[in-house]
């Protein structure tokens, strides 16, 4: 089981889109390594012959009847938007170039 390095945590912060501070990274390194040590015992019993469980109460997937329903109105859908304009969400620019 690999351990959490500084670089790894910085990379995970990028993947998870959290701009972790220097202080957080340092503290998290200790904590995560201690947690990882405790939880990697799962591999002792997870042998090839054991099937994984995703849903503990398995159900047959089914399709809902194709009946029209009233969704949220545009106003309701936008009601929590941090920034909105003309009935639309306003997002910062997606690409970084000037």
């Amino acid at each position, binding site marked *: 089981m690999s351990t959490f390095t500084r670089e790894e945590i910085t990379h995970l912060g990028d993947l998870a889109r959290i701009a972790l501070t220097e202080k957080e990274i340092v503290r998290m390194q200790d904590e995560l390594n201690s947690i990882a040590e*405790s939880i990697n015992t799962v591999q002792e019993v997870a042998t090839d012959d054991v099937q*994984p469980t995703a849903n503990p109460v398995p159900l047959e997937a089914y399709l809902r009847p194709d009946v029209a329903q009233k969704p949220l109105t545009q106003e309701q859908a936008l009601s929590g938007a941090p920034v909105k304009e003309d009935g639309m969400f306003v997002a910062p620019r997606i690409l970084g170039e000037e």
Partner: protein
Amino acid sequence: MSDTAALVQLTAAEMAEKIRNKEVTSRELVEAHLAVIEAAEPQLQAFLKVSAQEALAQADEFDALSDEDKAKLPELAGVPIAIKDMIVTEGIETTAASRILEGWVPPYDATVIERLKAAHMPILGKTNLDEFAMGSSTEHSAYQNTMNPWNTECVPGGSGGGSAAAVAGFEAPLALGTDTGGSIRQPGAFTGTVGVKPTYGAVSRYGAIAMASSLDQIGPATRSVLDSALLYEVIGGHDKRDSTSIPEPVRPAAEAAREGAKRDLKGMKVGLIKEIGGEGFQQDVLDRFNECVKLLEDMGAEVVEVSCPHIGYALSAYYIVMPSEASSNLARYDGMRYGLRVMPPVDVPQTAANMMSYTREAGFGDEVKRRIILGTYALSAGYYDAWYGSAQKVRTLIIDDFNKAFDQVDVLICPTAPTTAFKFGDKIEDPMAMYVNDIATIPANLAGLPAMSIPAGLSGDGMPVGFQFLAPQKRDEVMYKPAAALEAALEEQWGGPVWKSMNTPWLEGLNK
């Protein structure tokens, strides 16, 4: 003792009976609880938001119904309830105790809220929790600590500490919680109340803010087993808006609870889980547990020891599955459509991706970040099989263990938590110490089983101890009978409910 104090100390079923007998109106019940909330909140801080106007309007609407219409409603109609702030309520701010949702007013109701409204149960407000239900003490709330009504220097448990404290402190007769690894049951144990996690899929999760979707379940927090049964019957049953909702009617829990109150358990086989208890468990928790086992036997139950050999791996599997699913579920908080948005500092490109990173850095607390990072790692290429894949296999092994146990016995028992409520700050700096507190509640979530905690008595220093029952999947009623029987036997010993031993200074001075 004032009228108000006497009224709020009734069980929800008793309140409902008084409504039917026209001894009290729903408005009077709501007003009584609002008075307690006003008096108690400075000491307990169980609520993040009190929805007084909404509750009074809902009560008036119920009181105005004809007797004929009232008779068609569920038994708890007109009795007020508090809601963990992890469940969305249309028009009432819902935060999950996180800065990232501060001020968010949902445009829709969770299915359970629709059902409570259909049952005309007024909603008193939203209760405090660990941020996004991640924690075992409610100390991870971004807004406030909630105090344990038994001793305000102690935590009320978590994540549903607010709901448990509100019910224990008589601010509400009933509350809803969410239980991912014990978040209803462990606070129940810590506050001397009843907490139930139904079978996974027995109560719709539509509108429950998602933490770990294969583990999360909504359930009741109450002061009696019958109240939990009645509340479960209001909120349970199939919902086509939740793809994991079991397409079957609710189980007859109230009937089983009433049967249990007769205190006859002849013919019932009870399995004591060998692997939960002993080392790491407080001695007086084990003492109360053993006394309860004796009471079950006195009522005719046959108690045998059963083994679930893989339970020792449950905590590890849980702390892989839960952060993995949480890291995925919490990806939705991206500052785009609702919630907090924080733009990057001026020297950082003002892009959408950077906005997300600074929003999530500012909006999430330490525990949430820790779990997102851990989950992101567990799901990443190269580690998925070793971590998430292995944890899913452990779930299969634990389910097999339980299936074998339920071949031998009707219901399983163990303590709810290894300790009684601890002091503020005791475990907050050490994540593993906090995680270990969930060791007895997690197995039911991993296996999708229904489980409940009821008060088992007090520790040497006067704090409540919890006793846990676990039943087979989709047979929730099976645990209500022995739970109600044990509750009745204990209350006879104590000369009343466990809360008779609790000091409630906030109830004095009401009705002045």
